[in-house]
């Protein structure tokens, strides 16, 4: 994605390079959450009745949870209570473009600064982009090109209008609105996101990318992504995120649902670089996200790869329900926390079908005062004969003020299951740094080298350009943290 020298130089010069604010006219709801707001959002998006009803059911469920104070409390993170009536639930640029040419130049400039080209030319680079700015999708490239192969890729709002049956069939089928506190909130107020459908037998020729950008102050971002890979299809999907530097904490509560039918495969890669807050822990994004895939068909596969470097708090467990026989779930994760960042992240692999396999590789890196927790669950159901899981979770500590924690849960109800679990915690050792120094490599480069080596198994799963970006992001984020 972003490989131009200019972007790299900016990256080297700043601690958080995406912290600028775009000055555009926005249309927003007043802060607060109630039925009127939900109805307003739904009407604004000209949604069908069934969707409004669904939102309202979600809202009632959410308000009940809120009233009973049933917020998720089990994660190893701490933050002051969020006032859900203070948040603006919808903010969108005022001009609504009909085509790429009509996109506000300020917004195009924003994406250019982020190193993302919304130019149709980008097809040459093998990437199609959907750009989500605050609450709405502002541009999707190559829609027509992809449509020739029957691939649907674009904003969620468009999908609701153009493919209501598909949306209705799958929406909430993997993450129901009752799933958890933040998933309920999202279902009530979600504003946009990406929708993708790969028809039977089609191998998507380009990586599909969504770039999420929070811009307006006081807003939350609640996008919803739904990807369906029909029989014998394949898609690689990339997701990037950033936000301006602001003193307040902003809430990001997204939901991602993936479904693979028979022999289908979805490869989902994320680079999450929301604003993490300043050195004293002020500001930053609360990233409370529910991501889950269901391997519905036999021999299907879902693979999550994530590089989590941003956000004040990350609470995220991309999971796979292995329903189809012989299906495969994978989770590869690098989570870097520094300053006062907190991350509680991991995965859930639920084995339902026979001969299902899952692999979990998690690499947690902590520096300064950060806390990093891996939380994972492997569940083998009674009918899941011959289920296999391999879990490796490694932690790397930089300095002596930070923490790493590993919380694996295992629940096996079938005797034929085979599970392996490995975990280790290490430090970037003095001897490693000295060894590098002795070959002429500076201390900072030495640390980056050691950390890249530590993350290699995960980076090797990323598409090439994303891997390059991930490597740089890690280097930039670790500047000045040599322990």
């Amino acid at each position, binding site marked *: 994605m972003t490989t131009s020298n200019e972007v790299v130089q900016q990256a080297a010069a700043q601690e958080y390079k995406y912290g600028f604010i775009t000055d555009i006219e926005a249309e927003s709801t007043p802060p607060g959450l109630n039925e009127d707001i939900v109805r307003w959002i739904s009407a604004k998006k000209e949604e069908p009745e069934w969707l409004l009803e669904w939102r309202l059911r979600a809202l009632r469920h959410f308000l009940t949870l809120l009233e009973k104070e049933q917020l998720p409390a089990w994660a190893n993170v701490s933050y002051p209570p969020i006032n859900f009536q203070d948040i603006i639930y919808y903010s969108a640029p005022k001009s609504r473009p009909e085509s790429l040419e009509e996109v506000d130049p300020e917004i195009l400039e924003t994406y250019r600064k982020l190193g993302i080209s919304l130019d149709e030319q980008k097809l040459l680079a093998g990437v199609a982009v959907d750009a989500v700015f605050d609450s709405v999708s502002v541009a999707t490239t190559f829609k027509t090109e992809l449509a020739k192969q029957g691939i649907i890729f674009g904003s969620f709002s468009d999908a609701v209008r153009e493919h209501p049956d598909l949306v209705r069939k799958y929406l909430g089928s993997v993450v129901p609105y009752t799933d958890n506190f933040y998933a309920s909130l999202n279902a009530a107020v979600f504003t946009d996101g990406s929708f993708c459908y790969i028809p039977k037998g089609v191998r998507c020729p380009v990586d599909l990318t969504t770039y999420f950008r929070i811009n307006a102050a006081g807003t939350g971002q609640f996008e919803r992504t739904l990807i369906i890979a029909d029989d014998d299809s394949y898609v690689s999907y990339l997701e990037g995120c950033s936000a301006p530097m602001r003193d307040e904490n902003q809430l990001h509560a997204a939901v991602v649902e993936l479904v693979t039918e028979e022999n289908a495969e979805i490869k989902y890669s994320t680079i999450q670089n929301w604003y993490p807050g300043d050195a004293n822990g002020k500001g930053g994004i609360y990233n409370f996200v529910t991501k889950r895939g269901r391997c519905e068909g036999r021999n299907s596969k879902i693979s999550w790869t994530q590089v989590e470097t941003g956000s004040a708090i990350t609470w995220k467990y991309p999971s796979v329900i292995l329903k189809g026989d012989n299906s495969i779930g994978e989770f590869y994760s690098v989570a870097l926390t520094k300053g006062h960042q907190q991350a509680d992240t991991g995965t859930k692999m639920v084995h339902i079908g026979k001969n299902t396999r899952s692999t979990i590789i998690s690499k947690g890196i902590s520096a300064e005062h950060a806390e990093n927790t891996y939380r994972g669950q492997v569940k083998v159901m009674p009918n899941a004969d011959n289920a296999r899981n391999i879990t490796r979770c490694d932690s790397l500590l930089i300095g002596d003020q930070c923490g790493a924690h590993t919380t694996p849960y295992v629940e096996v109800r079938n005797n034929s299951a085979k599970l392996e679990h490995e975990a280790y915690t290490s430090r970037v050792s003095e001897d490693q740094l000295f*060894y590098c*120094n002795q070959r*002429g490599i500076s201390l900072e480069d030495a640390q980056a080298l050691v950390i890249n080596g530590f993350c290699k198994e995960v980076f090797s799963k990323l598409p090439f350009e994303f891997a390059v970006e991930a490597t740089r992001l890690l280097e930039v984020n670790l500047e000045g943290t040599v322990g």
Partner: protein
Amino acid sequence: MLEIKNLHASVGDVEILKGVNLSVNAGEVHAIMGPNGSGKSTLANALAGHANYKVTAGSVTFDGKDLLAQPPEQRARAGLFLSFQNPIEIPGVRLDHFLRAGLNAVNKSKGLEELDVLKFDRLIAKKVKVVEMDRAFARRAVNEGFSGGERKRSEILQMAVLEPKLAILDEPDSGLDVDALRVVSEGINELRSPERSLLLITHYQRILSYVVPDFIHIIVNGRFVRSGGKELALEIEAEGYDKYTEAAGAPAGE
């Protein structure tokens, strides 16, 4: 090239080096021999700048400049190379990537060209032959899962790539069988040149029949107790270090 005067160094609170003096000219090979705990590795690490080895007195100049004032990476860039007795593992980092980072850091500091991946690939393909390995060897992660012999070969390979002015070889022969010893020794000999000096630290005489030194120094209890020509090695082989250790008291490191 290298001038060591009255060097004292400690590990923790224990003084290991108690006044070492040594002068090395360009092209010379000096062997430093001594029993375990006599201060051989301390001398190597103190010269390279390891933080655990504190210099408490004395001076070292390298190419006329104060060596001790420079951080380790600067010493390396100035042309000082240490072949580690126990090379360190860096999991997940390929040896060739690691070496390219090192060579380019050295080149950059001298205003020389930094090698791109293709140019470096040609260079490393040539250099692995110095230690009788193939290209694939350099694609493995640095020392990860390396046998003892592979680690020593890797150190010599790194020296061949970085082409230092002064190489300190800390027991490049320890743990090697006869064949590996031959390969490592031939690699070292190939890198001998009128411009390059070697400080060869060893416990045993046997490597010195392959890599023939110009001078031999016996270190005991943190001091050089005798210096001479290559014939000194044969004397040690025959008589051991006993007569020196008895004269000097208990070994320094224990």
